[in-house]
């Protein structure tokens, strides 16, 4: 197998860029996942929009895939979080245990504090 160095000119495997920016949300914060009405290569699936969950972790700063999909650089990097939602809060007729959860990655601009008005 060849080393990463030899492939360096074709790929950029270290594309996670840690930033000095402080993330907007902390672990445990209650957040609402927004529907910002953006078309195209967005990474927030319909089934979690308008739902309320809890920040499970801050994942780091990532180049914005909504821009990268169209040939742009996706810079500056944006914060990404994992949000934990109770399955019963996503599906009112969920057929499973009350402790069952879904965890999903959501970029900062798709989130608002849970107390704020929805979009």
């Amino acid at each position: 197998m060849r080393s990463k160095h030899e492939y360096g000119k074709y790929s950029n495997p270290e594309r996670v860029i840690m930033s000095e920016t402080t993330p907007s949300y902390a672990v445990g914060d209650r957040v609402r996942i927004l529907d910002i009405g953006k078309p195209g290569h967005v990474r927030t699936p319909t089934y979690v929009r308008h739902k309320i969950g809890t920040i499970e972790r801050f994942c780091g700063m990532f180049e914005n895939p909504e821009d990268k999909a169209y040939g742009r650089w996706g810079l500056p990097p944006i914060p990404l979080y994992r949000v934990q939602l109770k399955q019963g809060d996503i599906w009112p007729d969920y057929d499973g245990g009350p402790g069952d959860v879904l965890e999903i990655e959501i970029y900062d601009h798709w989130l608002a504090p849970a107390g704020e008005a929805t979009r």
Partner: protein
Amino acid sequence: MSTHDHNHDHDDHAPTREDDDLELTEGEARFLALKSLLIEGGVMTADEIRARMEFNERGSPHQAARMIARAWLDPDYKARMLADTKAAAAELGIEATEAALVTIENTPERHNMVVCTLCSCYPRSLLGEPPAFYVSKAYRSRAVREPRKVLREFGVEIPDAVDIAVHDSNADLRYVIMPMRPAGTEGLNEEELAALIARDSVVGCALPVAPA
């Protein structure tokens, strides 16, 4: 192999896929044109392109199985794998090129499974190509909606007292599920343990079982 000693009927030689004699898709035609230009222009050689394709396709579920087996035997390694999966892979000489790789541990209280509802995001550099079911729309839509029923169809019965966490691999992280070490495997070494860890158990759709 030198001798034709494997055990099958020769009717088994029927093609498992449709013969690939269809017209090129637009993407295939573009790839072949670009490849010829790069070679003719001296930018890269055909061998470099082949080597890169082999590098891209080097992933195998066995790589994750080796890491999990090591983690079962070595609590310090397990802690490092949970903290930084890419670095833990590198310790075993496994080069994972995913932007960010996360290991999620099954516990007696919580079973975990992975799905990418938007497409089929999967840690390919570590695990190789995803299973066909993982890419199917049925799995992608049902795993988040009725995970217990989906798992039951895989033969995995999760007791009501155990919570299920479904992880939608919808953005930049890629996931490895670390199953629990089955009972009855106390005497096994790392290689023997790794052999128990099936591809589907690393996405949470199977459980390792001790050898009979």
